[in-house]
Each structure stands twice: as structure tokens, then as C-alpha cells.
């Protein structure tokens, strides 16, 4: 129960922190941390415009997307407390729920009959396909330590040895940070600030959504940030610490995660569009290398 509350709390703050860091580095005046929240409330007060080319798919897709992300958030544990729902091998359900959300967003983008949205939908489909193996191999690395494979059990068993968790944690941290950048369509895959359609992936898919739909799409992307931040923090926060230290360190890590994203976004340029697939497959390659090294650690590869 605790984890979903904190995920929602961090989801509210993370986009504000990212915007603040980016504007500070860019030498601009910082917006308030609550500015994204005000934007959402403004959207909730507006009506909607639908295009006559679209069909019922366009109306139901944002709702299914938001539900899938919220549902996926229910599974994520926080530092030893299990998520709201938890069962064996639930991370597969988690990953495929997110894939369901992406499927619906892709077809809703194609529904508008616009060439721009088609471009974005196409790239989104390819990149999310390429980043799937990275997530599964990383979780496979964690599953090498235990037979009970629910999300929470994987982390609990990782923390049984500190040396282990540092080694795997560092490599996994790196990969998961970049996976979250790919999933949320941030640099260096996609630039959320440019509104040139030839260079966008995610922002262009939601060009024609408005009002309530746009608001829940934004909230869903914040939730995704919070979910990945929680996954990252679980590598560091141990379940053996007292509960208030866990909460404090969790919030600190979320702030750190948001700041890192802000810094990475300010200082890196977006990849050339054609180089994106190979960049994403590099993440899977690093995940596989981590898996192989974990085989050494668990002494399946016998070295002396």
C-alpha cells in the first residue's frame, strides 16, 4: 500500500524538478515545481476536439493507456514492501501491460490519418520493440538468485549480499536509467522540446489529443517516470533499514533521478534518427554482459 502512495507523490513532483533543473542550467528563470500540476488542472477544465477522421479507437486509447500504466504501478515494490498486487513472475504482466498501453497509443496515432503521427507511431513501435529484451535480461539477472520470482522477492534476495548488490546495482542502474529515458521518449532518443515533426517520437503521437485525454496522457507519462525511479531506488534502499530511513532515502533518490534526467537532457544532443536502433540495442548488449558476469558471481561459470 505504501509504495503506490509514494509513487503517486513522486509522480507529482518529478516533472517539476526536471523542468527546474533544465531551466537553471539553461540560464532561464525557474518555473514553480507545481507548474505541471497547474497545466493538468487547466486541461481538465477544457473541452475536447475530435477529428472526423478518427474513430472509436481514438476515444478509448488514452483511457486504456492510462489504466495500463496505473495498473503497472500497482505491481512495483518499494524497498521490501510489496506493491499493491504481487504474485509470482508478475514482472512479465508488468512489462506486457506497458506494451498494451503502447499498442493502443500507436494505433490511436495512426487513427488520425496524419503523416506526422504515423511517423511517430512507427518509430515508437520499433524502439519499444528493441528495448524489451533489455528489461527482461535485467530481470533475468536478478532471477538468477532466487526461485520465487515476484518483483519484490527479486530485490529482497539481491540485498542478501552487499558486495553483490553494489556490482550488479551499478550496471543495472546505468541500464535502467537509459531504459526509462527510452520508454519516456527523452534524450538521446527523442527531444521533448522540439516540435518539429520530423524529429519527434512521442510528442508527435499526441498532437491531436485534447482536453481530458491529453491530461491523462501527461499523468501517465509522469507515472512512468515515478515507476522507473522506484525500480532504480530499490537497488539501493535495503529492506533491513528502519521504515523512516527507507522513505527518506527513497525520496532523495527520486529527486536525484529527476535531477540526473534534467542534467542528461541539458547536456546531450539527440541521436541522429537512423542511429537510434543501434543505440537502443547497446542497452540490451550491456544487460546481457551483466547477466553473464552474474553467472560468474553465482559460480555457474567456474573460475579460479
Amino acid at each position, binding site marked *: 500500500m505504501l509504495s503506490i502512495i509514494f509513487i503517486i507523490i513522486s509522480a507529482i513532483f518529478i516533472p517539476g524538478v526536471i523542468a527546474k533543473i533544465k531551466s537553471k542550467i539553461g540560464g532561464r528563470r525557474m518555473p514553480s515545481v507545481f507548474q505541471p500540476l497547474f497545466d493538468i488542472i487547466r486541461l481538465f477544465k477544457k473541452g475536447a476536439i475530435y477529428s472526423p477522421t478518427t474513430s472509436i479507437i481514438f476515444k478509448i486509447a488514452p483511457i486504456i493507456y492510462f489504466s495500463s500504466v496505473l495498473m503497472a504501478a500497482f505491481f512495483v515494490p518499494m524497498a521490501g514492501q510489496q506493491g499493491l498486487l504481487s504474485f509470482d513472475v508478475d514482472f512479465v504482466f508488468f512489462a506486457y501491460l506497458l506494451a498494451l498501453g503502447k499498442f493502443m497509443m500507436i494505433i490511436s496515432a495512426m487513427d488520425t490519418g496524419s503523416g506526422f503521427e504515423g511517423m511517430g507511431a512507427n518509430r515508437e513501435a520499433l524502439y519499444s520493440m528493441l528495448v524489451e529484451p533489455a528489461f527482461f535480461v535485467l530481470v533475468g539477472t536478478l532471477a538468477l538468485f532466487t526461485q520465487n520470482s515476484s518483483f519484490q522477492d527479486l530485490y529482497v534476495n539481491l540485498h542478501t549480499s552487499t558486495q553483490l548488490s553494489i556490482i550488479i546495482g551499478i*550496471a543495472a542502474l*546505468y541500464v535502467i536509467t537509459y531504459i526509462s529515458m527510452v520508454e519516456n521518449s527523452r534524450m538521446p532518443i527523442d527531444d521533448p522540446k522540439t516540435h518539429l515533426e520530423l524529429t519527434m517520437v512521442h510528442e508527435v503521437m499526441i498532437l491531436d489529443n485534447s482536453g481530458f485525454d491529453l491530461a491523462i496522457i501527461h499523468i501517465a507519462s509522469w507515472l512512468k517516470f515515478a515507476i522507473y525511479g522506484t525500480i532504480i531506488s530499490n537497488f539501493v534502499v535495503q529492506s533491513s533499514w528502519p521504515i523512516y530511513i527507507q522513505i527518506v532515502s527513497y525520496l532523495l533518490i527520486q529527486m536525484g533521478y529527476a535531477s540526473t534526467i534534467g542534467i542528461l537532457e541539458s547536456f546531450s544532443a539527440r541521436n541522429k534518427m537512423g542511429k537510434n536502433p543501434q*543505440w537502443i540495442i*547497446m542497452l540490451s548488449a550491456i544487460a546481457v554482459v551483466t547477466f*553473464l*558476469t552474474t*553467472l560468474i558471481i553465482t559460480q555457474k561459470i567456474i*573460475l*579460479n
Partner: protein
Amino acid sequence: MTYLFIILYAITLVYFALSERVKKFIWLLAIQGIILFGIVFYSLNEIEIFDFIFILLETIIVKSLLIPSFLNKVRKHNQLKREDEPSIPVFYSIIVVVISILISFLLSNYLNDIHLHTQYFTISFASVIFGIYFIIIHKNIYSHLVGYLIIENGIFLLSLAVGNVMPLMVNLAVLLDVFMGVLVLGIFINRIGDTFNSVKLDQISKLKD
């Protein structure tokens, strides 16, 4: 703790397969030097002060500072293009690098000799294989030099694998190899660059006469 450095070294190999910019190659070589220092530091049982200074010299100073700055000078002097595109798409190179790391790990599993420290054998073999592959796919002499240096890093690790105490002779020999290679090729590239205005391999092979 050595395992952390093994992962980091393998990650630099993956980045070598991924990147196309020449500056990035130099940067990655420097990082590899630092990682090698970390591996050596954590694995030597007893360290004589002289050996320790020698290794420090070799890894950090030579591999991470001297050679990269020399390469940088050569790059600027010849005004090399920023990017060097390989002849096999990068996508497949990354798959090749992962498979070579996998094979090298499996190989070191099956070599269970009491005289070998197979811990270091894992990535040294992968490094050698990848260095050779790197030379095969790039067409620029400069990149060949970089590939040669990757192979030398792999051999350095191999020398760790076969000995407990770092034998001075092996290290001197490796150092000499590196010096000669870098110096000769560097001067070579400078001279060719001056006379010829290009260091592309296909144009140099026309020099066959």
C-alpha cells in the same frame, strides 16, 4: 570487486562497437586504461613498491594519458573526419561483440587449469577477438591503430592471467610493443597525411606500385 571492473571493461568493448566518432575511440581507450589499473590494483597479492609504480606508470600514465594525447595530436594534425563509418552496420557489430564476450566467458569456464587465473582470461580473450574484428570492419588506418591498442590491452590482461606476481619482463615487452606500434604508426600517418591528404585505406592500397 574485480567483477565490477570486468563488467565495466566489457561495457567499454560494447561502446567501441557502438561509436563511430574518432574522438570517442580515444576517450574509450583512456577509460580502458583506468579500468585496467583498477583490475590490477585489486588483484595483486603482494605488491612491491617498484612493481606497483611500474604498473601505475604503465596503465595510467602510458595508456590513459600519453597515448591518448598522442593520438589526439595525430588526429588534429591530419584533420581526420569526425566520423568513421564501419563497413558492417553497427547493429550487427554489437551482436558480434556480445557473442564474442559470451564465447570468451564460456571458454574460460572450460579451461580449468591450476596455473591459470581464468578470472582475467574472460575479457582478455574477448578483447583480442574484438580488436581483430575492429580492424577488419574499419577502413581507416587510424582506426586500425585503435584496434591494435585494444588487442594490446587484451594481452596485458592475459599476462595477468598467467602469473601471480607481475613478471617484469612480460610487461616491458608489452610496453615496448605499444611504444613501437604507436610511434611508428603515428609518424607513418603523419607523413602520409602530409604527402597524400587522405588516410583512407583503399586509397593507400593503390600505392602498391
